[in-house]
């Protein structure tokens, strides 16, 4: 079972690469999409020179730090506002308004307030990540059965205990969807942050190689970004599995009615 899953992924992945290789030069000029072979070449150069890892380390750090910061704050705020529904309703249009802002247009502001070093990128990433995790957590908290909560409150559970024993586990499915959703945004956030201002990181590498018309180099950087994204996603899924063992049981069990 498990093996064949990876097998299918491999097949699909190789299929995509073939498509890319064939399309390159035939359907689309390599100037825009390079080609897998060229990208592989550039990739091995960048790996050999150590440049790729130097940039990837920085981006990964920014993305993960921003992800942790943003999602941590989002989960807490989501829990709090999920309990304080009224406040949530008051704030709702402001939160949505904030997210309608094209943050890239605010680049000068970010630079002003948070500078141009790593911390700016982390904060930028956190801001990008926040909404998705927040809104999912909030919805998760709102969807927890009030009956279940009342039962526990009758047992003498304090608000904190209700949150810990009922709300959080019940909302976990939602929270994890939020986390999985925001993982790619974290990377995109870090990269956009590097494009806004930076001289290191994969985002900078993309910007630089693009400016130099080195499409293969840009795609090599993009391959690194995507790989990071997939790794991050896998990490979150593993965390999900370990934090929600009962879900697996549910998935594995025969449907009973």
């Amino acid at each position, binding site marked *: 079972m498990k093996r064949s899953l990876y097998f299918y992924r491999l097949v699909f992945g190789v299929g995509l690469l073939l498509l890319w290789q064939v399309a390159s030069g035939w359907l689309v000029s390599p100037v825009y999409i390079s080609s897998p072979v060229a990208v592989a070449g550039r990739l091995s150069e960048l790996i050999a020179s150590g440049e790729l890892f130097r940039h990837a380390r920085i981006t990964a750090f920014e993305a993960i730090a921003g992800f942790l910061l943003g999602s941590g704050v989002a989960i807490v705020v989501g829990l709090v506002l999920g309990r304080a529904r009224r406040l949530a309703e008051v704030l709702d249009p402001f939160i949505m308004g904030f997210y309608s802002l094209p943050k890239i247009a605010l680049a000068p502001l970010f630079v002003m307030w948070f500078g141009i070093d790593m911390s700016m990128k982390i904060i930028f990433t956190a801001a990008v990540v926040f909404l998705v995790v927040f809104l999912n957590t909030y919805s998760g908290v709102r969807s927890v059965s009030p009956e279940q909560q009342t039962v526990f409150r009758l047992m003498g559970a304090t608000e904190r205990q209700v949150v810990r024993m009922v709300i959080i586990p019940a909302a976990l499915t939602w929270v994890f969807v939020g986390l999985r959703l925001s993982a790619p945004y974290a990377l995109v956030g870090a990269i956009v942050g590097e494009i806004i201002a930076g001289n290191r990181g994969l985002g900078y590498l993309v910007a630089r190689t693009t400016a130099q018309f080195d499409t293969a180099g840009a795609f090599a950087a993009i391959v690194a970004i995507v790989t990071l994204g997939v790794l991050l996603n896998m990490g979150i899924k593993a965390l999900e599995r370990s934090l929600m063992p*009962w879900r697996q049981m549910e998935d594995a069990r025969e449907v009973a009615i």
Partner: protein
Amino acid sequence: MHMDSDISPPLPALVSFAGIQKTFAAPEGDGTLVAVEGVDLTLEEGHILTILGPSGCGKSTLLNMLAGIYKPTRGTVTYRGAQVSGLNLRTGYMTQNDHLLPWRRILANVRAPYEIAGMPRRSATAKAMELIDLVGLTGFENAYPTQVSGGMRKRASLARLLAYNPETLLLDEPFVALDAQLRLAMQAELRSLARRLGKTVLFVTHDVDEAAALGDKCAVFTARPGRIRQVVDIDLPADRDLMTLRQNPDYGRIAAKLWDLVTRESREGRISHET
């Protein structure tokens, strides 16, 4: 409505419902639906009250009001002399649906009340295991609720209720999914537990025999809007042996009386399932 029980108990009433009415928004439009009406009822500390009544007559609603989950539309619910407002934490409620946490194994579900009380993990587990044994779930302590049968979930839920050891137990059809034997055993266990620990119990059931066997008195309700048809004193010995009760002629008499009361409505010409 008339009562044939004396209303001058030696003990002061622990629980009292006075002039209770509870209405809900009608399922359709703007009307209201009267669930229970004109309910006056008292219960003394350490006694067991069983509640019999047709489906939808407001039995669960009554328990909800004592637990402080619903507010009565009219009248007052008093507990230990004070009006119930907000959750009544002296009561423990075993609801019609088991509200087990799906993400906790049976053991952890039963242990939850101990955790809430801040008991150390080790002793909480030991105590929970005792209760799991009591309800006959040994061997299933590591199963998730989805992995056990309906009756087993009920039992787990009962064990959890006993774990948090409230002063008054509200039991809404707790033994419904249990087989006859187990049911008998659990009934006996409940009575002896309640007597030993001086628990007060409100026990909703549809089973006339059960109502007679378990209760110190039994409130029989009419169909919705639920009113009390009669409160019947069950003058069986407090230390009755449930196993041999079927042979007791008093028991037979009381059960027959209850049976008569619950079926009166249909005999009086109202069709049984009129709502």
